């Protein structure tokens, strides 16, 4: 069962540039990722949009493994700002998991 976390949804909603909603799950990003990150960004973005904070926390290591190299973003057919979205999630995790402000 997924527990919806308002803080996560608010964090994402407050960032106008966050556009994971545009993803239509084609998998180009996953295929191109130099790190071979299976979770990122598609599955992760689904959890985020659902407000599934526990799932996002469980993926912390993957979120911080992203190289921010934009290989995926350069090829994304939906123009998802993947690296920006990942950075926003890092900011959320830094504040809420690591308590660094």
């Amino acid at each position, binding site marked *: 069962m997924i527990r919806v976390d308002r803080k996560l949804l608010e964090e994402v909603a407050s960032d106008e540039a966050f556009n994971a909603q545009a993803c239509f799950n084609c998998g180009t990003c996953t295929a191109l990722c*130099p790190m071979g990150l299976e979770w990122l960004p598609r599955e992760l973005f689904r959890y985020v949009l659902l407000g599934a904070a526990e799932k996002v926390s469980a993926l912390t290591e993957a979120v*911080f493994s992203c190289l921010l190299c*934009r*290989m995926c973003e350069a090829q994304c057919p939906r123009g998802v700002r993947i690296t920006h979205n990942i950075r926003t999630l890092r900011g959320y995790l830094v504040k809420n998991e690591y308590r*660094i402000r």
Partner: protein
Amino acid sequence: MALLAQNLGLRGSVLPLPGGYLTSWAKGLLLPRGGEVVLYTGHMYQMLPVIKAMEDRAKALPPEKRDQLAAILRLVNPLVNVSGFSRFLASPDWKERSNRILRNIVELLRRAGVECGYLYEAEKYAGALAYDLGLDGPFERHARRVARRLRRYGVKELITVDPHTTQIFREVYPQVVPGFDLRVRSYVEVLAERGLEAALPWEEEFVFHDSCVYARYLGLIEEPRRLLTQAGAQVAEPDFSREVTHCCGGPVESLFPEKAEEVARRRMEQLAGLGRRVVCACPICLLNLSEVRDPRQEVFDLSEVLVAALGQKEK
């Protein structure tokens, strides 16, 4: 990560090193202090010898020991600058090399008729790593401090030496520091605009490795190629090149050194398939690719090749 945030907040850098260490490269160059146009090193090249030493030591420790060590350092760090000690571990070869690269860049700019100042000890790390890791609070406070300092020195234009510092000043500072409007250009752009007068035919091709940040964030793709060609070099292009360049793994080096090495090996294989000499334009790529090269291969910084071409022309 907490250590990085502490360092940035308390000492103005993710890896605070003493001013003398960071500015020793500029000795004897007689760069004026400050001025409207300054060369901004952003400390990335100077950090290489220390990053190399820390990487080597981190890889020698099992992950659970690394976590314990990080926890201890985090407690001690507010009182004693633990990162400052890391300079005693710095690799002397890399220290010599990164200092030489910075001197090369000044020489190249001077040869192109560009004179610039330098802020010496007043120059601060720009904050790219903190921004990338999502340390938004510490980064924004730091960026405002750096911007205030640049204003105080009357700086109007920055000439940067690496892609990360270029990108953070050009694209991120204007978003977090109200009114930040400095002109920010990489030395690669400045040189490419002016052209290089040194056409020396090299015996071998150079394989060019694009930095992700230069190529995909800043669209700086033709400039380094033009400079290499003007230096008389033939440029070989790997399949993953230009807008689809393959990362060197460097960005995750501080958190996951083993994964970073894997990515670097994969990239080096692609490059090595085309030639023995690889050229890159980013300090992080330089270190990461050098670390995994076969002894028969060489990895150069763009400035090293350009300066060699100038030197040869005079002979």
